[in-house]
């Protein structure tokens, strides 16, 4: 019998190919903490990535607009939707239209740095990635992105 380090799930979402040690951040961004059963694997061997993390979320079928939120920290993650023990959908991460409360604005004089305000960033360019703060309109490039 094949043994699994992380148990297979019958229904739910599997997020694979998360960069090593980023699984907890992914859970945080997706707001999955205390929202049902999660199995988390950290530091698994991966041919492609060396080390990788994996998350299995039971009885939750995450939509594309939800999983695209992790594009900044896990751009090469794969999303597997499992129904009745079978893989029914496999997809890649794409850039969302907007990042909501994921990125910290680099402008210390932005209202989001001064008050309790949800940050919003829109994509200006994808290659290289350039974002604009919805509030102060400051431009940030991929090297300057700081996750909240």
């Amino acid at each position, binding site marked *: 019998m094949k043994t699994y380090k992380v148990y297979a799930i019958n229904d739910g979402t599997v997020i694979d190919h998360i960069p090593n040690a980023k699984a907890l951040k992914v859970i945080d961004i997706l707001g999955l903490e205390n929202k049902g059963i999660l199995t988390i694997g950290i530091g698994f061997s991966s041919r492609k990535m060396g080390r990788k993390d994996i998350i299995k979320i039971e009885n939750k079928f995450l939509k594309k607009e939800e999983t695209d939120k992790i594009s900044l920290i896990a751009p090469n993650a794969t999303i597997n939707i499992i129904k009745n023990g079978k893989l029914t959908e496999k997809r890649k991460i794409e850039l969302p239209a907007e990042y909501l409360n994921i990125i910290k604005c680099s402008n210390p*004089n932005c209202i989001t740095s001064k*008050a309790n*305000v949800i940050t919003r960033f829109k994509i200006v360019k994808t290659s290289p990635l350039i974002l604009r*703060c919805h*509030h*102060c*309109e400051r431009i940030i490039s991929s090297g300057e992105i700081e996750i909240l």
Partner: protein
Amino acid sequence: MDFKGKSIISIRDFDTEAFDRIIATARRIKKGEFAGCLMNKLLATLFFEPSTRTRLSFESAMRYLGGEVIGFSGTDYTSVKKGETLSDTIMTVSGYCDVIVIRHPVEGAARLASEISKVPVINAGDGANQHPTQTFLDLFTLSEFFPRLSDVRIGFLGDLKYGRTVHSLAYALSLFKAPMWFIAPDLLKMPAFLTDEIEENGSTTHETEDLEGVNETLDVLYVTRIQKERFGDMQEYERVAGCYRVTKKVVDILGKNIKIMHPLPRVDEIAREVDDLENALYFHQAHNGIPVRQAVLGLVLGAIR
């Protein structure tokens, strides 16, 4: 674009059609149309930091169209001093008036206010970010002298790195595809991302460190103040500020048809001797703040359709 009920926060929220609408409305107001159209309407001016032209011209604009004004300038005698949040102030005040004009030292404050307020919010400056009605009045002033904004050959002189006025006007004119010259010392040159965006919108841009580097005839020179505090070395500041001073002689070199604009306040980047020349538009430009802000108030309040 239907302006009724809309907040005016950033120049990036508008297209050329919206600019043309504001210009056309301001022109009709200047001819005396729409008198009294804001009767029984109330404006709240919330100035969290000082202003001369913007606050007074908004208040004049409201009163000239028959409306009333409440508000504060500086937060010393408000609940802000007691620690009230911007969100609570806006939520409260939006129940007291028909439209809010806000100036705030923090960037993004006006956008946040517009998302909380029940009535339209007009941004009268949020830190170094946006001041859209300044851009509208700049466009309106240009339109009085140049029938097609796409043809205006405009040079921007001075602090192009930090100047929000320049950034907004250059962006707006790029939507009309007007050709532009950016004249600034290396330390204060236009941010590259903005120049790229302006070119992507269809404008041609030329960068040079001094006016001598402009080899073609300009229609307009838009001058901005070079701020001392941007320089660590005062000798360097004196040298740069001296190179960017517009005098009668400079106007002569630029040609008799050149128009000189400036968002004001100025320090000494335009010599007083230029004020009397027909080329000087800056006070006329400041006075255009009234019809343009009347147009904006009338449109967002739905009194001008």
